[in-house]
């Protein structure tokens, strides 16, 4: 059942067409234009720059990132040169990426609603295809007290402010660390978001048995990679059931099959980060090749054939069988 016709892997996210559905996640390889270009050359449809903040940040002290066996945990603390300096880097990156037909997504974060707006306006000068609004970094203490992604009101307020500050389409990046991510998604959709990135890392902690100390200097950090996948799939499924916005499904995608699962859960396209560690620098091209092979072996034509299938339910002809009563039940009734 190999497919003979051409396979189209391009896809749309918030009005932007990407040549491939793979998006380099924010924070991977930092802010460097040359590294973003390097990532773009390995099969990305878009690359996301490291989150930048209004003022420069040195980030946390080491250890900042650890491969703990089931993925990574990191607390970089958003080291970045600050929005004003970042613009030059983004402009350079945009130029390099344009030559490759790969979109640039500029990630921003800030401590207050107003600063989110100002930062969006600043980075807009570099002309990124999209702005990613990072309201979900678990590793920085903001003057706001908690992540903006923790509350529907705060998330909506940031979204409104950013939308009022730039004409570039905006995707809002959500956190899995909330009781009901669908309600946050509805709030940012109502506030005008053009898309959603789901998810940022899940807060966790490694403890060193020998010393008893947390391993990351910051104490807690964000879990990414393999361990995050089922959390991300659940969040993407719940968000796409709740709102019509396109979602950059991100979290634990390490293989082409993982990408198929993420698209099946409803993602418009697929973010990739930690795979760079588990599969090496060519992770994106490996995933892209595996995705292509998977699609062509099944005679599919493109991403529309697999996207959102997790929402179909058991189907009309499905037979629903019931489990028998539990053992204790039978026994105690006997």
């Amino acid at each position: 059942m190999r497919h003979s016709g051409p396979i189209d892997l391009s896809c749309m996210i918030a009005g932007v067409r990407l040549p491939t559905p793979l998006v380099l996640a924010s924070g991977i390889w930092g802010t460097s234009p040359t590294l973003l270009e390097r990532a773009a050359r390995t099969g990305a449809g878009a690359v996301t720059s490291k989150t930048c903040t209004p003022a420069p940040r040195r980030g946390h002290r080491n250890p900042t990132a650890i491969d703990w066996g089931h993925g990574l945990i990191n607390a970089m603390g958003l080291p970045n040169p600050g929005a004003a300096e970042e613009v030059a880097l983004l402009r350079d990156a945009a130029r390099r990426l344009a030559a490759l037909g790969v979109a640039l997504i500029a990630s921003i974060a800030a401590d207050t609603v107003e600063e989110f707006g100002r930062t969006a306006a600043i980075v807009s000068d570099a002309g990124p295809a999209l702005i990613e609004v990072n309201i979900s970094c678990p590793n920085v203490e903001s003057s706001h007290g908690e992540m903006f992604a923790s509350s529907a009101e705060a998330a909506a307020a940031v979204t409104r402010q950013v939308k009022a500050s730039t004409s570039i389409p905006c995707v809002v990046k959500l956190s899995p660390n909330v009781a009901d991510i669908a309600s946050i998604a509805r709030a940012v959709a109502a506030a005008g978001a053009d898309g959603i990135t789901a998810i940022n890392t899940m807060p966790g902690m490694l403890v060193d048995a020998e010393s008893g100390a947390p391993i990351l200097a910051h104490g807690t950090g964000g879990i990414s990679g393999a361990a995050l996948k089922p959390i991300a799939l659940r969040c993407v499924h719940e968000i796409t059931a709740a709102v019509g916005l396109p979602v950059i499904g991100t979290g634990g995608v390490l293989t082409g099959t993982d990408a198929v699962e993420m698209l099946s859960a409803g993602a418009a396209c697929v973010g990739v980060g930690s795979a760079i560690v588990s599969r090496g620098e060519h992770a994106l091209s490996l995933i892209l090749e595996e995705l292509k092979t998977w699609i062509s072996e099944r005679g599919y034509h493109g991403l529309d054939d697999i996207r959102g299938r997790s929402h179909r339910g058991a189907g009309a002809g499905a037979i629903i069988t019931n489990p028998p009563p539990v053992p204790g039940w039978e026994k105690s009734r006997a």
Partner: protein
Amino acid sequence: MREVPVALRLIDRIQENHKTITLVLDHALDARPGQFCMLWLPGVDEKPFSIAGPDPLMFTVSRVGPFSEAAHALSKGDPIWVRGPFGTGWSVGPGRALLAGGGYGAAPLYFLARRLREAGAEVEAALGARTSADLLFMDRFGGLGLPVHAATEDGSMGAPGRVTDVVAPLLGSGRFDRLYACGPEAMLKALEARCRETHVAGELSHEAYMRCGVGICGSCERDARLVCMDGPVFSVPGGG
């Protein structure tokens, strides 16, 4: 070795010179010369160090700032936390090899020298420092029975001047197929130029500020290359 820091114990702490010690640990590591590990001291910091020997695992640490000072304060029996090995390392094979080390760069080169000899290479070493008191691993290289060319800036041992001054004529002599180097950035820069002039292939071990050590955070970039993942050893093409 796991990617998570493992507490290893110091079985020895060798004072190499006034500001440099070698930590000898109760562990063997399957590593190639030129690879490095991240060393962690809880409450202090985590920093990269070249592997000075794999079995027992050894690191040679010069006291230059807060982390290295804390490492110097360790005693026999104390734990230090290690993750790795990371990076690519030097190529090992037969041939005529010149090893050029500045400061603690001598340590990983000594590990390399032993592997090169096992592989049947002809090896000579050039080691440089400010004074004879700063020269490292002279005895160990001597113990391998290979020619060692020393250079000190104050002329207190070997040729007066920098290691690059000693290396330049050796490279020009046509006696070597490959230059292996580890040391300060300025030295590596000068050696890279010499390699290009003399058409001798070079493998130079560089440094950069590291966070993850595993090629994801981008902290250690040098010209679109990641020192932790693509390096720390980078090649200068030879041929001509």
